[in-house]
Structure formats: structure tokens, C-alpha cells
């Protein structure tokens, strides 16, 4: 059952990180910003995790 859960979650992440996402990750995606200037944006995933110290 754990296997099926994991498979399904991974399959869904695979859909989220589609070719468009990978293209933006490796080659960047050009977007015109508010100031009329174009910039090339590269997607990167960051995590910040924190927790209260255990008692």
C-alpha cells in the first residue's frame, strides 16, 4: 500500500514538473517585467524548514 501511495504521488509530481517546467529550469524563461525590461528567469526549488526544539 505504501508503494502505491508513493507511486501515485511521484506520478503526480512528474506531471507538475512537465517539459515546460524543465525547459524553464535549464534554459530559463524570458518574461517582460513591470518596468518593460525582459529578464530570463530560471526556476529553482528552495526549502526552508524549521521547527520548535523538542522538549
Amino acid at each position, binding site marked *: 500500500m505504501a508503494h*502505491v501511495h508513493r507511486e501515485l504521488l511521484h506520478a503526480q509530481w512528474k506531471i*507538475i514538473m512537465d517539459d*515546460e517546467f524543465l525547459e524553464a529550469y535549464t534554459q530559463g524563461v524570458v518574461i517582460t517585467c*513591470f518596468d518593460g525590461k*525582459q529578464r530570463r528567469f530560471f526556476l529553482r*526549488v*528552495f*526549502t526552508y524548514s524549521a521547527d520548535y526544539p523538542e522538549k
Partner: protein
Amino acid sequence: VPGDSHLPLAIRRQRRQPRLPKRFCDTLPQTSAALPPSEQPDLPDTINACTAALGSPQISPATTDGAQLERCSPRRILKSPRNIFGLFRQYHARDFPSHDPEELVTLHEMWDASCASFGPYPNQSSFLLGEWFWCEGVQKSKRSFKELVDIIRGPEFNPADIRETKWDLIDDQLGSDHNEVWMDEPDANWIRTPVTILVPFSDRMLHPGAKEFVISDFYHRSVVEILRERVENNYHFHFDPFELYWQPGHVPSPATRVYNELYNSPAFLEEHEKLQNSPKNPGCDLPRVVVGLMFASDATQLTSFGQTSLWPLYMQFGNESKYRRGKPTLHLCNHVAYFQKVRLCLPSISCPDSDDISSFLTISKTL
């Protein structure tokens, strides 16, 4: 004093103005000091250079200028002026960024209190009365009467506020359930994709081996699409990461590194460095920006009694200040997907070898 001679002497007398002890004085939060003007030539030139280089083989003057500039001004360490707390920003770049997202941030953007809305009620006094009427049960009681009196005697109550209130109209609005629940179309830009997984069955079952299962209702959005939406027309998006330092003015001390946002964290700066030092896309001279995606997810129960649940995937951009991201009314937390779950239903424990898989394993429909 001639002006207030009609006042009694006790009031007229000059009183000593009591001053708050220093320990109670609070300095309001402030943004970083403004950046010195950028000496970089405007970026549209660079874009022209980029397109010119792409379009024609001969080198236009703009391109040579840009190339020369790149050669003669290497990236260096640039320090911004300090603000009143002794905080300053340090960039590793050729020049200060042409755009400073912290320039226009005011204290009011950090909190939500000032924009409190009382829904269909025009003001707080009307809201308090309306709330009392609807929430106090059907029978009169002494406690309820006391609460009404407390509302009317309260410091926030102003009788003039409720003089014009149209109570019937407000109650109609409250009952009609049509008021701005969704800001956008409910299904706009959402994609529904079927998910296929392989489920293995053990040798002891009637049909061993892997079988395909299709889950149809996986809703998700394109991350790049969300990025596009968030970057266009957004003044507050940080394109250039920096190091933040603290050096109080009155004591000579080495500057202390301060971390308070993703865009001044070592991980972000490292990634920015890597990107700037990586080979450029062929024929393109546009500035390259790291976008910090921060995903978060937690399954949530929707009802107190029942099985309905959702498993949303949220995403925020680390290039936005945490103070802005933490303000719900700015809607900076994006929904990216709603995960589907596999739910196990056991029709009868006695026959685990049953091959009736469809009743054994059902995919929950949460949407």
C-alpha cells in the same frame, strides 16, 4: 495667555509634559536605505543588442558597447548605505540593480488591520449591532441585554454611524450568498490530467504481476504560467539577491551577517552565482534571474463529520519578502495542485486473496 483666558486657571497653568522613558520608545520598522543610482546603461539597449545579434550576423554598435562594458567592469562588491538600524546590503555585481523592490515598501504594506472590512455592513457600529442580532439566539436573556448595552456603551460605537444603515438590504445580501466568493473564474488555467500508475500484485493472487490503474481527476496548474502571472506587473519581485549586514554606527565593530529572507540566504546567493557564471544561452544577453520556488503541502480535512478531504500543493516565490507573503490579502500563496490519494477499502478481511481489486482499492474522489 490671552487666547485661553476663558479657561479656568487650573487648566491654563503650564503642565510639565511627561516624557516616555527611553526604554518604552519604539523605533518603527524601516526598509533598507535607498540604493545609489545605477550606472548601468538601460537594459532595453541590451535587449536590442540581443535581438540584433540574433537577427543579423554583423555586429551592431550596441553589441560592441555591451561587450566592452562587460570586459571593462567586472563584478565587484558593492555596499549600499546603512539605514538607521545599521543594516546595509552588499551586492556582488557589476553595478547596483536598476530596480530596488524595497524602495516603495511602506509600513502599511506589512499589516492587514487598516483594511478591515465589515462585509455588507457599512461600518463597525452597524456590524456590532447586526452581529448581536443574529448571533445572540432567539430568546431574550439578561446576559444578552447586557451585551447589547456593552456594545452601545463601547468606545467604538457611534450612534451617527447606524442612522443611515439599511438593515433589510444588508440581511438580503447576507442571505443571498453571492458576494465575491471567488475573485477569478473557478477553473481558469487549471489542467486536469489522468495519472497512470502500476500496481503490483503478489504471486499468491489470481493474476500476479503489475497492473495499470488510471486516476482521472488530478488537477494542477503550470508553474511557469503562475510565474508569468506573478512577475508581470509586480514591483516587489527581487531579481538580485544580496547579503545583508548589520553594523551599528556608534561602536566600531565588524559587520554581522543578517539572514531574514530567501533572497539574502547563502543557498540563494550560491545558486545566483552559479547561474551568473554558467555559459549564457546562445545569442541572448538578458539578465538572468533565479526564481526561488517554495512548495508546501499538507492534507486537510474539509468537514467535521465526514471523509471529504483535500491535499493541496501550495507554492510561494522566495523572491517576494516574507512580510508580503505572510499577508493573506495579497494572495501571494499559489495553489499549484490538488493531489489525489489512494484509499484502501476492505470489503471483508476474511478474503485477502480476493482478486476483486476494484472493490479492494479505490481511488478517492476528493474533487
